[in-house]
């Protein structure tokens, strides 16, 4: 009741002021300070960071990537670790995690989908350069340049292996997260990757409570599980994974002959080393063929399920959009459902736009969500199906190899491979002799 009276009082005051024909700037005369000759205080405002530094950041990114490639080429994990520490300090603590290539994919998505959306040059460069490097050298960006990855790499003290039955399904989260983030960004609704970045609050030494808790959880996990964010969350990793799969100069465990000791597989905390596969026995081959047939038949079902799921989730997802929220609030207000005008509606009223315009815009955004979410769901189903099919296609492989998509190029396997140690020793001796 008190609030009602207060609101009425405010409304009456407002009416009085409006009727007294005063504009906001001159209701009260400015004082002349005859007595004290007081002068207005001078406030100095901090200027923004000059644009030159954005290009400095880009140059540092480029330099770090080149250094990472060189460190991998010289097989030096020490240099990679030092570079990782530098990246955490520069891109993390000094630049406070912004601009980061992981989040920039949302700007790119919105920029591509909305022709009037402004994407700063530095954001485009930060998105593109790591992908181009991944196309040539694998995920060197993840290895020691990404502040998030480098941080997890640095704090990993006692890696625990995750069983394959758990790891394989978890690897789907990044793709689903990527599709969701792109959908929300492309419709101009929210940038969830930045909102739920678990390490940014550490870099900024500041943040809201839930994110601080999330941050703590992820850092705790990273002590025992190798790069939990990179492997099971990071949406940018999907793109890097794709590019890295086709990289020409990806690092190898050893250029020497593999003796199949399997030490590298034990050393890899990220489960990124594939084991040699022997030829199938007759019965194995037939059961494989049967499963392949079943999964091929399931594939269209998975796609349809994905489309259906996506279509169903479109309506709740569109509720994250500001325009849709405003339209809903206005509609329920007009139906006398809402007790008070929400601030969204109040703001909309102040803008002085037509109701019908708002409804039309909200409807068009809802349509975008329906189409986008269905397409994303279908795509997720397709990839899931293809993955199941792929599990039943045998690839002949007679040595231990890094999976180019999953490998973070951390360089651990180099020092664990006995052949590689021999080779490096020989190289060193030759160098000393010569």
């Amino acid at each position, binding site marked *: 009741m008190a609030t009602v009276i207060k609101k009425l009082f405010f409304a009456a005051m407002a009416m009085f002021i409006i009727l007294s024909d005063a504009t906001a700037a001159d209701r*009260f005369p*400015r004082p002349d300070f005859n007595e004290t000759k007081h002068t207005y205080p001078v406030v100095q*405002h901090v*200027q923004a960071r000059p644009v030159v530094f954005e290009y400095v950041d880009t140059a540092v990114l480029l330099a770090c990537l080149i250094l990472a490639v060189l460190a991998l080429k010289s097989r030096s994990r020490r240099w990679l670790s030092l570079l990782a520490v530098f990246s955490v300090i520069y891109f993390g603590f000094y630049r406070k995690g912004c601009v980061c290539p992981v989040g920039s994919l949302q700007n790119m998505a919105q920029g591509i989908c909305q022709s009037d959306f402004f994407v700063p040059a530095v954001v485009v460069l930060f998105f593109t350069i790591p992908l181009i490097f991944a196309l040539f050298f694998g995920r060197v960006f993840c290895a020691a340049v990404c502040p998030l990855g480098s941080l997890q790499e640095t704090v990993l003290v006692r890696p625990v292996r995750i069983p394959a039955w758990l790891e394989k399904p978890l690897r789907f989260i990044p793709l689903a997260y990527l599709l969701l983030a792109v959908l929300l960004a492309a419709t101009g*609704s929210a940038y969830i990757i930045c909102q739920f970045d678990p390490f940014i609050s550490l870099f*900024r030494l500041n943040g809201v409570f839930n994110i601080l808790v999330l941050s703590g959880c992820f850092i705790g996990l990273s002590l025992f599980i190798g790069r939990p964010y990179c492997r099971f969350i990071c949406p940018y990793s999907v793109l890097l994974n*794709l590019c890295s799969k086709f990289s020409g100069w990806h690092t190898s465990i050893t250029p020497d002959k593999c003796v199949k000791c399997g030490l590298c597989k034990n050393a890899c905390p990220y489960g990124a080393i594939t084991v040699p596969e022997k030829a199938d026995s007759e019965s194995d081959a037939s059961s494989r063929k049967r499963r392949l047939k079943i999964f091929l038949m399931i594939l269209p079902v998975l796609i349809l399920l994905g489309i259906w799921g996506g279509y169903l989730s479109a309506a709740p997802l569109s509720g994250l959009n500001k325009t849709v929220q405003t339209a809903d609030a206005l509609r329920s207000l007009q139906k006398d459902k809402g007790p008070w005008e929400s601030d969204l509606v109040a703001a909309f009223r102040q803008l002085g736009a037509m109701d019908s315009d708002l409804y039309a815009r909200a409807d068009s955004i809802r349509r975008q969500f329906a189409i986008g979410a269905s397409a994303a769901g279908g795509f997720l189903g397709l990839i899931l199906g293809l993955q199941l099919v792929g599990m039943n296609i045998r690839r002949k492989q007679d040595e231990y190899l890094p999976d180019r998509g999953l490998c973070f190029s951390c360089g651990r396997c180099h020092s664990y491979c006995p052949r590689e140690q021999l080779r490096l020793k020989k190289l060193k001796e030759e160098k000393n002799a010569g």
Partner: protein
Amino acid sequence: MADTEKVNGKDGVAGPMTRREAVRKAVAAFLFLAVGGGALALLGRSGKKGTVWQIDPAKCVQCGRCATQCVVSPSAVKCFHAFNVCGYCDLCFAYFKPGTLEFDTTAEKQLCPTNALIRKFIEQPYFEYTVDKDKCVGCSRCVKGCQTFGNGSLYLQVDQAYCVNCNECSIAKACPANAFVRVPSDKPYLFKGLQPKEEPKET
């Protein structure tokens, strides 16, 4: 397939190109063109000048989201004061809660939740109000009071001392009035009122 010529998985290092290697190269080239092309298309639009986020005071409706939506905590949005617009009133609608009858600086009478608005006596009947930026959370209560009943000398701005210039401002995404705009980074503020000779100096 020239499997015999494979040198430890590095297809085609020594021998003629295998089919797998050819496919790899084709896909890599396609991805390179796609990524590069997309980047160039967007780069053409983005221009060379740097930008930062700023609040257009004319559009701001003081909804209070600036205090809660910023990735920095407390928010990088701070209250700015255009002193030459201010009436230096004793009864300040930005300072006192509505219904206040005695004008003293006790906490329960203040509108500001963090005691960031400081009231100083100048001469009868004038009082000067300044903002303590470190305490201000950008909740806009004082701005609303001043806007509704006073001269409107208080207004919200993104303070570059606190803003980390995210690639996309999370408050802008939540702002109901679309008051967040990108401005050139060499002129990062949208000052209000009769803008002063005391233009901000480089610090």
